[in-house]
């Protein structure tokens, strides 16, 4: 009897790159295969190699029973692919894995809910989809409804639910799955604050009962609280496997400077950024900013020849590619006649009013004709908001001004609230 929950040996998954040659209809594929028939073997082989890429490569790891492991990495690093292989949604191209115990995978909360069915019917449906037996769902039914806090709507079709109610019910079912091994893909980031705390408690409860949890998240704080160990994936490969703090540090230090995925201009960019530092007010490089703290972005550049009238932009993007803010020299009224050789540019931002999440600073340079000539990832940073800890609160926060006007007989009590 082994004490290992998961063993993976040489796991790899190769995908076809999504190029313009993707065939979506039979006509396309016939055309392409006719063209392919006239190509030589060598050409075909090379083309095949070009079209393929490894989403995950040579992943080796053992996970012991009861361990909580965080899986970190940028978008497209292979985190979801790994979870999909382990949950058997997709088969690996290479390697093997063995899973000892009942596995539950939550790659998305609420997949399988049917809009026309009532909450009650969906509890049974979703429970079965997640791998529970009917008796199991029946036995846990009251606890599930209780957990979801939407008892009075349980016989309403879920299409009439608000998205919050929908997620609550779905998570309530998922939380009662009680597997030996749980694969979680960022699903804890749902619902409001109180509900989220409930979910976190539930995860802890599972942990205390000895369940093994594999947890994919962009949220450094939840990784820190939940996991003692992290596996850091980069471009499909495991580059670190060990203690959480060490791994998170590596993750943050790493990949500060790379080309933005969508910018793959074959030609050499006329301007390159050799160093980007995100620093706090005192100029100390940091990766976590408190809500309301200004940021200093220091850019060191190197120009090939002479770049006329550039517009330099620093943009913040949330980890899921939602653009949040842009600072631009031209719109901020800074006129740069030209850039030559090497130098430094410093941007001081106003207080950052973003909610807790992981963000990326991107640097984009346009030339005088507004053509993008360079685009680089300038590093990742976290914002820590004291209360707003997930995307459910939106992107941006600024305190509002509130006024209360009460009914006539209670006017005296709230006098201070009225003007």
């Amino acid at each position: 009897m082994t004490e290992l929950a998961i063993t993976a040996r040489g796991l790899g998954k190769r995908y076809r790159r999504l190029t313009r040659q993707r065939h979506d209809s039979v006509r396309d594929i016939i055309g392409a295969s006719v063209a392919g028939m006239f190509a030589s073997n060598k050409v075909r082989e090379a083309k095949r190699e070009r079209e393929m890429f490894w989403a995950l490569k040579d992943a080796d790891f053992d996970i012991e029973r009861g361990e909580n492991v965080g899986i970190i990495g940028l978008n497209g690093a292979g985190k979801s692919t790994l979870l999909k292989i382990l949950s058997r949604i997709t088969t690996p191209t290479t390697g093997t894995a063995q899973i000892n115990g009942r596995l539950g995978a939550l790659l998305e909360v609420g997949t399988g809910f049917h809009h026309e069915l009532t909450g009650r019917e969906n509890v049974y449906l979703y429970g079965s989809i997640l791998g529970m037996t009917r008796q199991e769902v029946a036995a846990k039914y009251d606890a599930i409804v209780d957990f979801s806090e939407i008892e009075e709507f349980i016989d309403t079709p879920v299409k009439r639910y608000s998205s919050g109610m929908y997620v609550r019910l779905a998570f309530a079912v998922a939380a009662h799955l009680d597997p030996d091994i749980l694969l979680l893909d960022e699903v804890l980031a749902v619902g409001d604050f109180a509900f989220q705390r409930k979910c976190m408690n539930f995860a802890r409860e599972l942990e205390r009962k000895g369940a093994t949890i594999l947890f994919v998240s962009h949220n450094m704080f939840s990784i820190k609280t939940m996991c003692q160990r992290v596996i850091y994936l980069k471009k499909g490969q495991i580059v670190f496997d060990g203690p959480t703090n060490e791994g998170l540090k590596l993750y943050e230090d790493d990949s500060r400077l790379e080309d933005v995925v969508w910018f793959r201009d074959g030609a050499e960019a006329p301007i390159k950024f050799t160093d980007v530092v995100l620093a706090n007010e005192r100029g100390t490089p940091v990766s976590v900013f408190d809500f309301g703290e200004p940021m200093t972005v220091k850019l060191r550049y190197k120009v090939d020849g002479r770049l006329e009238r550039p517009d330099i932009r620093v943009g913040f993007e949330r980890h899921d590619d939602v653009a949040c803010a842009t600072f631009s020299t031209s719109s901020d009224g800074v006129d740069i006649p030209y850039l030559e050789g090497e130098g430094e540019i410093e941007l001081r931002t106003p207080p950052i009013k973003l909610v807790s999440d992981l963000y990326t600073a991107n640097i984009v340079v346009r030339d005088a004709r507004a053509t993008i000539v360079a685009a680089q990832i300038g590093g990742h940073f976290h914002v820590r908001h004291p209360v707003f800890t997930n995307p459910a609160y939106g992107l941006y926060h600024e305190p509002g001004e509130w006024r209360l006007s009460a009914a006539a007989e209670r006017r005296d009590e709230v006098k201070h609230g009225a003007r």
Partner: protein
Amino acid sequence: MSVEAYLPRVHSQEVTEIRPDRGWLDLDLGAVWRFRELLVVLMMRDIQVLYKQALLGAGWAILQPVFAVTIFTIVFGYFARMPSEGVPYPLFAFAGVLPWTYFAEAVRRSATGLVTDSELIRKIYFPRLIMPLANVVTPLVDFCIAFFILLILMAFYGMAPSWKFLLVPPLMVVSALLALSIGLWLAPINVRFRDIKHTLPFMIQIWMYASPIVYPLSMVPEQWQWAYSLNPMVGVIEGFRWAVFNQGEPNFMALGMSGVIILVLLVSGLIFFRRMERSFADVI
């Protein structure tokens, strides 16, 4: 908090092996059995939502075949004076339309079901075979409802059911297996190329006229009947009429032919489906 929460976890002895490839003949039907609850739940779901938010509800299960039979009776029975083997034409056509409507709907559902539920395929693991299996069962509900209309119609024309009615369920199993085997071939192709969805309606239309629904098998020239019976639905529909009306001789040649063809399609379809299943989540 319950006491059991404090007890150490008893781990399941389940061991799952994940590897890139399986053999050609590893159909792993055991996995389907282990997930039988999900199969039942998915069937229930499809049946529950079948007529939700439709004013006439299950009335559609009756109206559709009744409309079809009315039109066939006017066009083929009244204008074209099609022979109907001694049975009133409306009855004759109804007994053909009934199993056909089931079959057509079962094929349509099983061929497109994977794509309809693509979210499940992308995010949840279960033996994919469950989908087409559930899909061919759902339209049986419509069949059962419409079957009552056939009984009423027979009573109206003064025909009594015989013991051969007992042969109706096995015949429906045969047409379900045929629909399943077609679905097993079409569903994986539809995952990759949505063309199937567009081709299917007229494929089914053509198939209907190649089956003895509006005309009897005896209309087909004798020397061509063997070729005609290569269509596996010929045996099913003729068998259905024979069982319901208790008239004439059963066409064993057509039924036997159906059996062999269904067996070949089913086994090859299973292998094909299992083979393609591995990439469903990647390409759907």
